[in-house]
């Protein structure tokens, strides 16, 4: 039998109550995209066996809780000890610096640049977070549709325009309803936008929408002429996330720009209905063929009463063998350089899925430095939100592209004025 908290020792803690006060309880707020929390529960069960003094309780919460409530709780001082977060730079002020408790050399060697995403910038060299789930955006292509249409797939170095033309041709020749789709998310369009010349930062390193307009124009035009599945961006409002996986799975979509986390779902649901493959990110007029890195990481919080225990838990998860196991079982890309170098044999993955994950991993070196910096930028969530809202308004015709870009700049300015 399993207890509500998924913790193997939670029952004991509940029964024993105050009598167990000597054991240090560590609360881990986790959210699941797939099976991460279950795997952590399992792995940390072994950790608890090795460290009888520490009791890790995993609270599985809706993602909304991590995004909206966690910051308020942290501000009030009532947050958890550990959490899996996605607003990496934005929560920096609450992070516990693990450096005093862990082997700095090992961490820097293993996690390299991703450590920067959790830092405040400047000369901050703290070790705050373990990037547990590295993702990269990229395109899924329905190879069977290409074959049916008799259209040759654009090769290495092909641009967004090449792919748009080819996808349109395929969609016309086959029964597919849509040539292309990009998830409705400010993060997803960041890679293509950089390929079109978006800089995302001004000279002083502050966020900016400088250079975003060429992509906005192309994207709005694609939505207008039917190259892009209009539903994805135009049927929602606010900064709501919307994907197009359903259309792709139904064989209704030729080219789907999403990211590495979709591999598991494609593998399970497409099955052998058609052949699909991952082609990374197309190139743009500005040069780079960049995707956008992302993902989630495990961090500890300063307000914890047991900083040593917190550090011990995170350090355990960061060990190469544990990290490799979790990566394989959750079918994520590894951010741990040692694990990545050794290669990961993903659990229960079909050859197609294994190829897809390898293709995503291979596109990591193409990531532009702008994209890398943008991912670690503390105000990137504000910018993602603004991108989605204003770009959608341009697509549905409430604003012109120029107006939308002007509004976006104003929004960002207002946001920066209030943030401190």
């Amino acid at each position, binding site marked *: 039998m399993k207890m509500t908290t998924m913790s193997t020792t939670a029952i004991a803690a509940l029964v024993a109550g105050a009598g167990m006060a000597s054991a240090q309880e560590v609360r881990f707020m986790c959210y699941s995209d797939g099976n991460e929390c279950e795997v952590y529960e399992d792995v940390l069960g072994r950790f608890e066996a090795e460290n009888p003094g520490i009791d890790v309780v995993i609270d599985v919460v809706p993602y909304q809780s991590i*995004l*909206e409530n966690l*910051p*308020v709780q942290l*501000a*009030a001082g009532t947050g958890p000890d550990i959490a899996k977060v996605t*607003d990496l730079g*934005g929560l920096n002020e609450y992070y516990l610096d693990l450096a005093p408790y862990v082997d700095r050399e090992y961490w820097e060697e293993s996690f390299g640049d991703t450590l920067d995403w959790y830092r405040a910038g400047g000369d901050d060299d703290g070790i705050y977070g373990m990037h547990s789930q590295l993702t990269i955006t990229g395109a899924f292509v329905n190879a069977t549709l290409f074959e049916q249409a008799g259209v040759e797939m654009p090769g290495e170095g092909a641009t967004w325009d090449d792919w748009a033309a080819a996808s349109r041709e395929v969609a016309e020749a086959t029964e597919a309803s849509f040539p292309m789709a990009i998830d409705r998310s400010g993060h997803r369009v960041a890679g293509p936008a950089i390929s079109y010349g978006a800089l995302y930062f001004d000279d002083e390193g502050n966020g900016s929408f400088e250079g975003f307009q060429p992509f906005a124009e192309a994207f709005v035009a694609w939505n207008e002429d039917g190259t892009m599945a*209009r*539903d994805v961006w*135009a*049927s*929602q*409002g*606010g*900064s*709501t996330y*919307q994907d197009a996986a*359903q*259309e792709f799975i*139904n064989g*209704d979509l030729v080219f789907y720009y999403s990211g590495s986390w979709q591999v598991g779902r494609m593998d399970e649901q497409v099955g052998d209905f058609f052949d699909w493959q991952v082609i990374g990110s197309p190139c743009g007029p500005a040069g780079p063929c960049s995707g956008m890195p992302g993902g989630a990481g495990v961090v500890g919080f300063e307000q914890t009463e047991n900083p040593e225990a917190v550090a011990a838990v995170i350090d355990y998860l960061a060990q190469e063998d544990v990290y490799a196991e979790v990566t394989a079982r959750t079918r994520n890309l590894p951010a741990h350089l040692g694990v990545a170098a050794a290669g990961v044999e993903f659990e229960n993955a079909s050859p197609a899925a294994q190829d897809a994950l390898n293709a995503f991993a291979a596109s990591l070196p193409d990531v532009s430095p702008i994209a890398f910096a943008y991912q670690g930028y503390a*105000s990137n*969530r*504000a910018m993602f*939100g603004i991108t989605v*809202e204003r770009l*959608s*308004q341009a*697509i*549905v*015709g*409430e*604003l012109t592209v120029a*107006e939308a870009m002007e*509004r976006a700049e*104003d929004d960002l300015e*207002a*946001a920066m004025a*209030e*943030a*401190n």
Partner: protein
Amino acid sequence: MLSIISPLMRLIEIPMLALQRLLGINRLAWVFLLPNLVLFGLFAFLPVILNFFYATSGSDNVMLADRPYVGARNFVTLMDCSSYLDPNTCREDKFWRAVWNTSWFVTLQVGFMVGFSLLTAIILNRDIRARGFFRSVFFFPVLLSPVVVALIWKWILQREGVMNAFLDWTGIGGYNWLVDAQWAFTWSVFISVWAHMGFYTLILLAGLQAIPRDVYEAATMDRASPWRTFRRITLPLLSPTMLVVLVLALIKGVQTFDEIYAFTGGGPGTATTFIIQYIYEEGFAGAPRLFGLAAAASLMVAIVLLILTLIQLWVNRRNADG
């Protein structure tokens, strides 16, 4: 259950009786009010007061002590428009879009809501079979959580949804409902009526059943037409209940949020973004959290609502007197 409650109530009677002797009957009213006032004061009134402090301070800090005083700046930001009729000329264009959307939405929604619940209540009040069953059916959607309501209708109306499959099958052909601003808005009104109609029907039904039967019998004797009976007897006698329904429908209409937010996210663009969504996104879900702006907007909405309600109550009293 009653066996626990009854002795408990007798137990409460002892101190209440002592208080009654001490205070007299009319001041005892405050004792009856006290528990509610405490809860109210703490969890309904105090938040509004705190909201005022948020509205007059800046930054994205949660704790009030860390927030610098900025005076009326947030209100000025919201009101900064060259023409209130055109949101594009406003500094906070999203706020004004939400204001206009909400105004239209509430006008339509309250009208349809009251109309359909009255119709349903009148039909359910007739001498029909299986009244209990039908009454339950119309109330059932009220039980669904807003998220479920949104989920169900999103499935039905999305491009690859049930509705389009049906339309394809009939040969009419599907339509991409949620991409079309006007349709998305229309469906939002529909869904919100669908989800809440049962509640108002129930209140109206209770009001209808309280109308004495002999009044109708007299009307039948006079050979009054059904329409005349409805206008001359039913409506006037129902007016206290109608007032409750109108006030609640208006307030809840302006407060519409959860189901539409989960249904369209406020889209396409901002076509179904209503005022509470604006407040929620600025103050809670967005990044950074502009608590000040959100609090200022919420106070403005409350004031407008209060004025509207007072007008309703006043009109009702004047009608009752005249």
